[in-house]
């Protein structure tokens, strides 16, 4: 079984003319875990991955795989497998021939071609021209080329885009298995909800900068408690709560109190002698998504 090695980014920076697409990106992606690389479209995810893979030259900084820059790898596919976008195929070539070309170029054993096709479930379509493939099949073929060299490190850019629900379920299980085998798995996505059930750690990037790194569980550390309260005499309740030092906001449904538990709100109302007609605590259902959106900024909600 191939050994996973860490991916390291050190001060990685890329300027396209005036625009700084990636700024001082520093992070480590450990083996044996699935790491989600999250950020809105245009945040710099793809540029960062392309710098890691030697396709884009960094303006400053470096990115290495097990301490070695990609371009220095002798047999790159045996160390790193990457699937970047779903369109990198000649439409007139069959899936099997596509994989044969790159297996030969990267000096991967020929038998790995069929093994990779089998791993992604494309064996029965292997001799069809890729031009007739659905987006989901192309995603699978991209994944197959990433798996060609049986690498310890996998880098997948938006692998869930365009997959049907069955495919999404399949790839989630698949990525978990790869990480369980000790491989390093880095998966980018612009939607947290897409990878939420799959990733252990997250790197969140916004406007070219790393804004959060750590385990996914750390992202929802402080769920904001919201209590919705109402009274037949809403203005009396409002002043009572404000006198009690609570933050109150009036909405159509009633008064929203943040930063206090339901019991406290009830107590304040009772002490002020105000009748309550409604008192519920709202579970922060979208806590992760909220935390994510807060990190990437308002305009990040693409």
């Amino acid at each position, binding site marked *: 079984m191939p050994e996973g090695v860490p991916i390291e980014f050190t001060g990685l920076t890329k300027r396209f003319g005036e625009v700084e697409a990636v700024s001082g990106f520093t992070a480590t992606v450990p083996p044996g875990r699935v790491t989600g690389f999250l950020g809105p479209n245009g945040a710099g995810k*793809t*540029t960062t991955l*392309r710098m890691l*893979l*030697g*396709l*884009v*030259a960094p303006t400053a900084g470096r990115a290495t795989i097990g301490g070695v820059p*990609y*371009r220095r*790898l002798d047999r*790159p*596919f045996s160390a790193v497998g*990457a699937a*970047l*976008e779903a*369109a*990198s*195929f*000649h*439409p*007139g*070539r*069959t899936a099997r*021939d596509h994989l*044969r*070309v*790159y297996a*030969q*170029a*990267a*000096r991967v054993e020929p038998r790995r071609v069929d093994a990779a096709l089998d791993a992604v479930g494309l064996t029965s379509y292997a001799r069809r021209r890729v031009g007739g493939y659905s987006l989901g099949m192309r995603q699978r073929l991209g994944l197959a*080329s990433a798996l060609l060299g049986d690498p310890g490190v996998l880098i997948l850019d938006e692998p869930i885009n365009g997959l049907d629900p069955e495919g999404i379920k399949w790839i989630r299980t698949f990525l978990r298995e790869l990480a369980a085998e000790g491989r390093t798995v880095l998966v980018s996505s612009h939607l947290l909800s897409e990878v939420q059930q799959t990733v252990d750690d997250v790197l969140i990037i916004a406007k070219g900068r790393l804004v959060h790194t750590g385990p996914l569980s750390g992202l929802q550390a402080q769920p904001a408690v919201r209590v919705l309260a109402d009274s037949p005499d809403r203005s009396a309740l409002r002043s009572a709560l404000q006198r009690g030092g609570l933050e109150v906001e009036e909405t159509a449904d009633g008064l929203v109190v943040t930063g206090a538990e339901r019991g406290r709100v009830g107590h304040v109302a009772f002490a002020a002698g105000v009748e309550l007609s409604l008192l519920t605590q709202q579970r922060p259902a979208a806590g992760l998504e909220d935390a994510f959106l807060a990190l990437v900024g308002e305009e990040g909600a693409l």
Partner: protein
Amino acid sequence: MRTLLAATRAEFTKTLTTRLWWVLLLILVLYVGAVAGGLAFGLGALQASGEAPPRGGPGGGPALPAAMLAPVIYTLATVVGYPFPTLLGSLAVTGEFRHQTVTPTFLATPRRGVVLAAKWVVLLVLGALFGAAALVATVGLGAAGLGAFGLDTGLGESDMWAMLGRAVLAMALWGAVGVGLGVLVPSQVGSIVTILAFTQFVEPILRTVAGFVDWVGEVGRFLPGAASDALVGASFFTVLGGGTPSLEWWQGGLVLAGYAVALTAVGYALTWRRDIT
């Protein structure tokens, strides 16, 4: 070295696993075969009936002597056929950008110069193959036509076979010229238009003008098509060229190879090392 061998194998597989190469080859063989056969039977009939052979260019160049018939007809394989390996070469490069396969290509072979060297090797070989196939057509049908009217096919002479060998070399070099042009103009449409416009329009006009204007003739000898014809040694243009002497065959070969190297080197510096985004 191992990466170059691996990349070369991969480039062969890449070229041979789509339909383009054999479609181009088929058109080439049919096209030059038809022209050579038509000319051989047509001129053969004229010769046999005792009529004067056709006159040269508009200026009334020298008549086409009977001994020149066979080489002129055979070398239609390169004189008419040279855009085909050139197209194959340029498409081997521009197709990578068109279909974004340049991404997996550079992932599998991160040293980009190696990829370009591999494409050169493949196009030299396939260009030679195109040349050989085109010559089978022109020599086969041409000799049949000439022979049918009792004219000399020239196939008993070693000079003729040396010329056919140089024709194969010329087609190989055109394949490499195509790679160079593809790297310099990575847009597929741009590359194809450049090849067609230059080979079908620009160079024929320049070479025709070169037949009358001395200083143009001096420069005209160094045009790629003229260099290719010089390398091969016999063609319509050289026969009709009249006053302007063409290059020696080896000079022609070096000039054509020089075009291939120069286009590739400039293309490498300008486009091949760019970011792949």
